[in-house]
């Protein structure tokens, strides 16, 4: 069968030329590989929140509810750098008022998200602290199976930059699946 194989290869080269390589490359862009078709088991989900994440789309709750056995951890981070700037420029009373307002906003957002996630049948825990958003989340995400992060997380977005730079960097660095909503 050696002759048949070499004849086939010659004829294939003459008939198809290099077209197949181009087509196969194009297909690879949107067809999942065998590895990618294996649905990963998700038992823990990390969901970073902050001042810029005002609304969570209901579709996200729907998507997360499909991971029935997963535990969701909400992490609200108040930016340490912002607190430092405020501390440098305002008096004690104003700083306390700023912190109180930010924490109240955070508490309110956390409560709303907890209610919605529990309503979707998920177990939820939450934390709030002041820190470095990118560094802390990058460190935290190592212990989770899935990350769900808003495209507005960390910075304001604009029409020409609809994805925050913090989210973009997190998506680039993540070693686990990440949902950007």
């Amino acid at each position: 069968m050696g002759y048949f194989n070499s004849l086939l290869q010659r004829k294939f080269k003459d008939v198809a030329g290099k077209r197949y390589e181009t087509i196969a490359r194009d297909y690879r862009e949107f067809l999942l590989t065998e590895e990618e078709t294996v649905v990963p088991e998700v038992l823990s989900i990390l969901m970073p929140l902050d001042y810029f994440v005002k609304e969570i789309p209901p579709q996200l709750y729907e998507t997360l509810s499909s991971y029935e056995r997963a535990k969701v951890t909400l992490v609200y981070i108040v930016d340490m750098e912002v607190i430092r700037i405020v501390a440098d420029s305002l008096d004690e009373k104003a700083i306390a008022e700023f912190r109180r307002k930010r924490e109240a906003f955070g508490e309110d957002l956390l409560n709303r998200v907890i209610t919605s996630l529990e309503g979707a049948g998920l177990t939820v825990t939450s934390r709030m602290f002041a820190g470095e958003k990118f560094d802390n989340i990058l460190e935290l995400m190592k212990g989770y199976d899935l990350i769900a992060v808003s495209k507005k997380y960390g910075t304001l977005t604009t029409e020409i930059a609809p994805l925050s730079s913090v989210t973009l960097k997190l998506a680039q660095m993540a070693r686990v699946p990440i949902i950007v909503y």
Partner: protein
Amino acid sequence: MNAELIAIAVFIITYALIIDERIHRAVAAMAGAAIILCAQIVPWEKVPEYLDLGTIFLLMGMMIIVNTARKSGLFEFIAIRTAKRAGGSPMRVLILFSLVTAVVSAFLDNVTTVLLLTPMLLYITKLMKLNPVPFLVSEIFASNVGGTATLIGDPPNIMIASAAGLTFNEFLLNMGPVVIVDMAIMLVMLSLIYGRTLKVNPAEQETIVRTIDALDERAAIKDRSLFMKSVVTILLVVFLFFIHDKLGLEPAVVALTGAAILLLWSREPPEEILEKIEWPALFFFGGLFIVVGALVETGLISQLASFVVGHVDSTEEAMFIITWFAAFASAIVDNIPLTATLIPLISEMGQTMDVYPLWWALSLGACLGGNGTAIGASANVVVIGIAEREGISITFMQFLKIGMLVLVVTVAAGLGVLLLKYGW
């Protein structure tokens, strides 16, 4: 006498080189043509007469249209849509992909069709964890059977139509019923042969459906505007083919007009599109026409035609001989040189008998004969070649067993349909 010997020798050597393909078949045909022209067997002033420009320009026009449409992601879109429609059922995947391949092959080039549908078919069979061979052979047979249906479906049909002055509708009316019957027979045969092995358990089927449904066919469209323009142009060209005889236009003119419209409308750089024309294929045709022209010019074809006519008693008998000879010969030799040789023979026979039904017999044999062996048609070579690259082996004997069975049954059924119309 010398001219005859040279013509026969060049013809046989060119054929041998085309079969073996150690030298590119375009180069073999061009070299053969060069010898014929240098030996002045075909005089220079007669070259335009033998070069079938109707075939060459029709192929060129369709190549431009298909290559432009391919850039838009149209074929990938069709492949994903078909996969979704199949709903994860192996038998539905086999039937739907075969039907889509047949329909697309009937209107566009077979090689491009299978080049773009095979990767998707392999992907689905991998998901279903099934042996891909039944799906691949079904795609090959469907491409060859589908291409038989229309004037533009397969190069032999283009050559026959150009030589005999047949219209698109005549092809559809004569070969359409043959193709419908043969497709049905072929699918029944494959389901009987492979049916029991084409099963997945319901739980796995659900996962397969979910994975396929997650594919976004819109993501396959690389250029939405070009996609729409390609679809509109292809539909317009097909419509014009239906009425080309009423408009008094040659099929080649329709194809070239469609190509010009798409180039003008899409604003795609012409250098980029025109360089994708398969020039080797066109030169292959050109060279071949001259090599076969030498047999005509020396009177060999005329002698052979007289011999055949002298030994054939009726049109039915001639149909029978031409169909089976073309079918088995096409399984071994490429059907393009075979058709190029048989066309002048049938034309010569036309001086003493009614050859109209013989054109359909030739089309049937030349197109379906390709199913017989792994190297019988370009679609076979492409699908088996892709499979080989993906680590799936289809041996010559493995293909021969199923291919010859399909060839004999489909050609016999097709001949039966033609004889019902023109014979008994």
